Each structure stands twice: as C-alpha cells, then as structure tokens.
C-alpha cells in the first residue's frame, strides 16, 4: 500500500483485453499521477470506454497488471471492493436510479457501502448537491430533471463516496447543446480541486483548458499522449493529425 505522492495512482502495465475473439485493448501502458487530469480521445470503437471501465473492474482485463491506488486488480472480490470505493464513475447515460429521489440516489452508497448514519449521509449529499448547484431539486425524482441536471446529480452521487479518482465516460455526449456548458462548468470546478480525473470526451476546448495530458487511442492502442499544447500544436502521429482535423473543423 504505497500512499506516497510520487507513486502513480493508476498504473497500466502491458494490459490486454479481449471481447471473445476481439482484441479490444492492446499492450496498454499508462501511468497516472496523483491529482493528474487526463483526457482520453480517439475515434469511435477505439477502446476508450473499455480502457476507463477496466479501472473499476466493470470490464476485466485478461493479461498484464493494473494497479489502482496500491491495489492490484484481480477477480478477488476484496480488491474490487477496495478499488470501487476509491473510484467514482460518471456515465454518458447518467444511470441515475429512477425509483429513488435525487437525495436517495446520493445517500444510497454512503449508507449501504460506507455504513454512514443516514443523517450524516444526508448532510454530505446536500453539500455535494450545493457544489453542483442543484440542492433545490433534492426531493425530485431523476426523470423530473433535465439532462444537464441529471448529469450534475450523477457527478454529485459519485463524489459522495469521496473518491480519489473520477472516471468520466463522455459525460456531455448525451446532452442537448444548451446543457453541455452547465456540466462542463461543474467538471472544470472539480478539476480545480486536485482529484485525479480520467475523462473520455470530445470537448476539445475543455481538454485544452483543464487536461494535464491528452491520451489518443486508436484500434485498442494508445497512439500518443502529450500535454494539450503540444498535442494540438504538433501531433506526432499521422493518425492523430487525421483525427484532429476531423474533430476540430467539421
């Protein structure tokens, strides 16, 4: 259990993953420092979701080592439980629980997983809802909220377990254009607070302003990774240039 600030918080070491016969992740080497903000991009089907879903074992890898906050991921339930407590996740489709109120969505895990007393969990939930500026909606049901509001609730829900790492899988892709900004604002604020972020997104403006590093993937491989300035100005790889030209001037 290394907790020293110089050891990486996430370490992919020659990680390979297959879906049946399909080789989805190929020799992934990636190390993420504590507090680092990484944006993952790449064409559809390149394995971005697969990559970040491996971090909390929503997908299991078959080869290589993956160490998250000092715990090596394997099918050992103890390791999975420990890692999931350190890692929060935000999904493209929000995945709020429709049968629970907003507040109940937020207190569920702290009370059942974190064993927090209900009133403490409620306080913590309200604090997170304040943070994403949606506290006045606490007693509504998720389907009564707009997409942008739902996604902000989802972010607050993930934060309620005080994770060290946040995984975000295209958090703004399912939103109407006018709601993207309110979610990005919350994410920018989050990025300013020193939490480790691994975010799949095609919002290149957001990437440029908050990312410490951009990772570009294609066909299950990491093609190149670089600081945003360098990445956008001098992409090293032919494939990256092609992708950037498509995404930046449509």
């Amino acid at each position, binding site marked *: 259990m290394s907790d020293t600030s110089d050891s990486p918080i996430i370490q992919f070491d020659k990680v390979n993953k297959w879906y049946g016969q399909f080789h989805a992740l190929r020799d992934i080497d990636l190390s993420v420092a504590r507090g680092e903000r990484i944006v993952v991009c790449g064409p559809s089907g390149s394995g971005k979701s697969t990559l970040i879903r491996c971090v909390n074992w929503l997908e299991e890898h078959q080869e290589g080592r993956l160490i998250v906050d000092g715990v090596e991921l394997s099918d050992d339930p103890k390791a999975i439980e420990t890692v999931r407590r350190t890692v*929060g996740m935000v999904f493209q489709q929000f995945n709020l629980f429709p049968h629970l109120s907003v507040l109940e969505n937020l207190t569920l895990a702290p009370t059942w997983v974190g064993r927090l007393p209900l009133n403490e969990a409620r306080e913590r939930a309200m604090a997170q809802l304040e943070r994403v500026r949606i506290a006045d909606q606490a007693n509504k049901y998720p389907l009564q909220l707009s997409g942008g509001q739902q996604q902000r609730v989802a972010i607050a829900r993930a934060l309620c377990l005080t994770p060290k790492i946040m995984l975000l899988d295209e958090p703004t892709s399912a939103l109407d254009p006018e709601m993207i900004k309110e979610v990005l604002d919350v994410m920018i604020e989050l990025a300013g607070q020193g939490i480790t972020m691994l975010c799949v997104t095609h919002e290149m403006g957001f990437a440029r302003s908050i990312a410490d590093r951009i990772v570009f993937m294609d066909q299950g491989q990491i093609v190149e990774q670089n600081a945003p300035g360098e990445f956008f100005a001098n992409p090293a790889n032919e494939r990256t240039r092609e992708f950037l030209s498509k995404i930046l001037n449509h």
Partner: protein
Amino acid sequence: MSATFIVIPARAAPVRMLGARAWIRTHLFPDWKNGVATVLIAALVAWYLPQLLDWALFNAVFSNDNAACRAVAHDAARPGACWGVITEKYRVILFGRFPHADHWRPLLASLLLVLMLVASCRPRCWRRWLAPAWIAAFAAFFLLMRGGVAGLTYVETARWGGLPLTLLLATLGIAAAFPIAVLAALGRLSPLPAVRAACIGYIELVRGVPLISVLFMASFMFPLFLPPGMTPDVLLRVLAGITLFAAAYLAEVVRGGLQAIPVGQIEAAKSLGLGYWQTQRRIALPQALRHVVPAIMNSFISTFKDTSLVTVVSLYELTGALGLALRGDTDWRPFYFEAYLFIAVIYWTGCYAMSSYSHWVERRLAVSNQTAGNAQ
C-alpha cells in the same frame, strides 16, 4: 422593433363538450356502428334481465324448505332459484368437517386472515412490524384451528375445511412462494453455472407438470421416501406442493422484470461499490417488481383459485366442502348449481379485490414515477 406579446385570456369549454347528452353521444353513439351495438346490447339486457330477476329473486325460495325448492325447480312456467340450499348447508360449505359446535373457531380464524390481508394492502401498514404481525397471525390461526390448548378441543388438520383452509392455502402459499420465486429468478440469471442449472432445472421441472400431479406426489409419494412415523402432516405437504408450484411460475415473471432493467443501472450500482445482494435488493428488484405488478397479481389470482384442486387429496377447502355438503344428501343434491354460484361469488370477490388492488398499485407507482412533464 419587437412585436408585443398579447396574452389570450382563457375561455370556458364549448357546451357540446359538457353535460349528460354530450356524455351519451361520445360514449354510446359516437358513430353508427357503435350506435347499433348500443341498441342491440340494450335490447338483450331488456329481454333477459326480467327473466333473470324472476329466477333469482321473485320466484326464488330462500328458506331451507326442501319441498318448496323442488316445486319451483320443476315449475316450467315460472322457474325459480333454490337459495334454500345455502341456508341449509352454508355452515358445512364454509367450514367443512370442522366440529359443528366449534364453528366460531374457523370463523374467527378466517376473519383474522381477511383482516390481515386488508391491513397489509394499506401503505400505512408497510412497516417493519408487518412480517412479525403475519407470523403472529398464522400462529393464532393454527392455535384456533388446531386447539389442544386453553380448553379448546383438539381438531386434526384432516378435519379442517372450507373457507379458512382456502384462505390459509392461498395466503401461506403465496407468502412462501414469493421469496422462493425471487431467489429462483436471481439464480436463473446468476453467473454461476451450477446455481443457474439448479434453478432452471427446478423451474422447468415444476412448470412441466400439472398441479394435480404435484399434489398427488406431495400427498402420496413423498411419504414413501420417509421412514414411517416421520411423515409430515398432509396439510404441510400439500402446502409445500402449492408453494413450489406457484413459485416456479412467479419466478419466470420476476425474471422477466429483472431482464427489463438496463445494464447501466447495474453498472452504476457496481461503480458505487454495492455488492451483489445490495444491488439486487436496492436497485434491481424494486424496479423489476414495479414492471411486473399485473403479471404478479395474475400469478396470485391463479394460486388462489388453484387451491380448489387440493380436494383430490382429500382436503376439503371451499370447493371440496361443497361436494361434502351435497354429494351424500339426496334431498339437496339437485341444487348444486345454486350452491356453486354461492362459492363462485366468494372466489370472485377475492379475485376482484386482488385485481382492483393491482390496478391501484399500478396507478400509485405511475404517480411516484412521474416523468419530466410533471417537473416542479
């Protein structure tokens, strides 16, 4: 430069949308086809209703006067019903072979179960104490029926019958079947091959045979495999048979609900660190069961009516007790039809109550699950 926005004040709806005439037009005569159907149905009712009323009320015999009953039954010009058969036999129909002098015991026991059922339907009673209350109610039921304590004479289960037996088999059968069904449904979707195989085996085996044969096996074959003297009570064996049978059907209903849940829900629960059982209990099952309320109630109604089959293994619940009351009595045997109507009304009341309750639950869930339109 910008045009002014003028608000149009709300006006009352046109008169043709309101009132009795409008209702009649939209519901009974919206077009000529529906109009013809309305007239035909009204004519049929007008033709048959008086005859039905004559038979059921005006020409009917209500006292247990056997001679009068036979007279109206054979009067071709003015046929009438013989409700006297119920006046004469209702105690045997309702309580079977239970000792006559102690009929207050099954009556009280039945009232107790009905009271518990009604109470359990009210959201106000959905508290932690409901389960212990039910256990206490069943204990009280058994004490009342079985006796042997507190000065009550002992009555063996073979002599229990009629309404209390029907209610017991249905409520205890359903109550026990429900958790088994949930476990079997989860097992059938389990990633563990051995668990999955066992659950599929159980469900398909039980669904593949008629209830009658399950009851026969529970009643006659099962004791053959046990050492003599160790045979559990026939009522228990039959109850186990009904429970396992109902659970297999219910399990498939629950599985349908579970499979309708988007994977994203389960992934979100996992990512929050919820374990398998927590995920099922807090996320999957509450949503799954909501989706299948009508199908679950369908299963319950079936089980309620299926209890009438235990007659084949000599337990005289409502239907069986009716046979008991009339089969050996040549005086009253001709009036089976009226007696069957009597228990049909009892079954119908139970089933209709369940069905209405299911509609009420659905409406309630629809309200608490409102979608975006009702924001604020």
